[in-house]
């Protein structure tokens, strides 16, 4: 039996805007309001607003919580001054990815974590099962409405919608006079911020940002925008059987930390070299849109694996995709073929991102 869908505190606003709502990660969420392509281009050229209320928020505090988080997460929270955040990963004992998340240091001994919607329960259970006595861990996911305002006009929209408030610097964290949380982060490659407020205040905030010029955008555009940047999506491009080294996320792993869960596997992969690598792949010519699970072949037809994500990029108008490939086939320029319903389309390994924000 399918468990009942969860509902965003912004759902009434989506319905009023005529959104198409679909199940995503157990939530009834807008996939589009007008058209995925229109919304995609709105974010690249102006600004869009996404409902991200489905994402999870955890609060962590306690005198020793930084050291505790450093044992659970790959990046190093000691590098964060209060008011700053970092992308990081939570691994299982084998070094596989449980989740990717952003951790913000909201105070000297307080942290704010934003995790993937589909992983809220699993992440929380994992953290709670490793909890030290003096650590306070709270799942506040139900309490917050969340929205991401993204695009070159995002800071102008913030100034208009939140007069008297200051947008934090890139990756920064701030709170407003009305106790909302503002993070200068996103999932599109554009400038922008994520705004979290008490669920009951969500629709008013949403309407204010739209009145200030943000175009409502659904999960469809969110996916095309993130893939153009080569940002991984957990469940597609990240999995419990792949490490961040294999996923090309070594930058967000601090192997100099004395210990964190999964470190041994990562050290081994670092010294011996990973067997596979998550590669950015782009068609060299026009072709049918690449999609997750399509087979990837070498130039000579040898099967190499399957795509983890793929789309026809609206910005560069080419097929773009990602796949774990044997390291020997992961070098830039390696010729590949993508099998779409039996037709082979030529492609090559390219550098991330596929699209460079202007």
């Amino acid at each position: 039996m399918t468990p009942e869908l969860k509902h965003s505190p912004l759902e009434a606003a989506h319905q009023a805007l005529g959104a198409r709502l679909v199940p995503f990660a157990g939530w009834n969420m807008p996939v589009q309001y007008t058209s995925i392509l229109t919304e995609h281009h709105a974010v690249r050229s102006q600004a869009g607003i996404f409902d991200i209320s489905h994402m999870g928020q955890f609060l962590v505090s306690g005198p020793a919580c930084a050291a505790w988080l450093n044992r659970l997460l790959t990046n190093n929270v000691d590098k964060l001054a209060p008011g700053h955040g970092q992308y990081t990963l939570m691994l299982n004992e084998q070094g596989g990815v449980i989740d990717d998340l952003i951790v913000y240091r909201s105070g000297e001994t307080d942290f704010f974590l934003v995790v993937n919607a589909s992983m809220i329960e699993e992440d929380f259970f994992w953290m709670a099962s490793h909890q030290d006595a003096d650590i306070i861990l709270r799942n506040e996911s139900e309490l917050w409405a969340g929205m991401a305002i993204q695009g070159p006009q995002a800071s102008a929209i913030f100034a208009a919608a939140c007069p008297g408030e200051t947008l934090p610097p890139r990756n920064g964290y701030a709170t407003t006079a009305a106790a909302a949380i503002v993070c200068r982060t996103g999932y599109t490659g554009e400038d922008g911020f994520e705004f979290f407020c008490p669920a009951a205040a969500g629709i008013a905030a949403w309407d204010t940002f739209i009145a200030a010029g943000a175009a409502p955008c659904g999960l469809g555009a969110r996916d095309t925008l993130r893939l153009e940047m080569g940002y991984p999506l957990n469940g597609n491009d990240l999995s419990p059987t792949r490490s961040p080294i294999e996923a090309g996320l070594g930058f967000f792993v601090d192997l100099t930390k004395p210990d964190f869960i999964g470190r041994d596997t990562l050290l081994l992969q670092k010294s011996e070299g990973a067997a596979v690598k998550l590669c950015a792949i782009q068609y060299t010519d026009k072709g049918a849109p690449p999609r997750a699970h399509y087979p990837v072949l070498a130039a000579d037809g040898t099967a190499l694996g399957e795509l983890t994500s793929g789309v026809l990029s609206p910005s560069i108008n080419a097929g773009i995709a990602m796949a774990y490939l044997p390291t020997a086939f992961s070098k830039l320029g390696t010729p590949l073929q993508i099998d779409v319903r039996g037709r082979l389309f030529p492609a090559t390994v390219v550098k991330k991102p596929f699209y460079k924000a202007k």
Partner: protein
Amino acid sequence: MNVPADLRYSSSHEWLRLDGDIGTVGISDHAQEALTDVVFVELPAPGRKVDAADPTAVVESVKAASDIYAPVGGEVIEINPAVEADPALVNTDPYGNGWLFKLRVKNPAEALALLDAAAYTALIS
């Protein structure tokens, strides 16, 4: 929703315009709206023989690839190069420049089994 009275429709949302034994096939306004932005179409090779309900073309939106079925049996005699170059024609002009392929219909009586505009309107409303 636009459902022209002079066409026949399948329950899988293709339309058929019959002119003698030549049938032109596309997808309905309802279908293009449900599929959203069409970004790619894969058309059958001319000369291919198909039966009614055979998957004959593929229309792809940003999110998904959808099979398009032959509403009647016959031989593919022409495909629309304009939709290959500009797939959005399927969205903007589904009954006109967004047509997909033409068949030499084997048995025009098969078209009688398709829905008329009133029955198709009832199906989608």
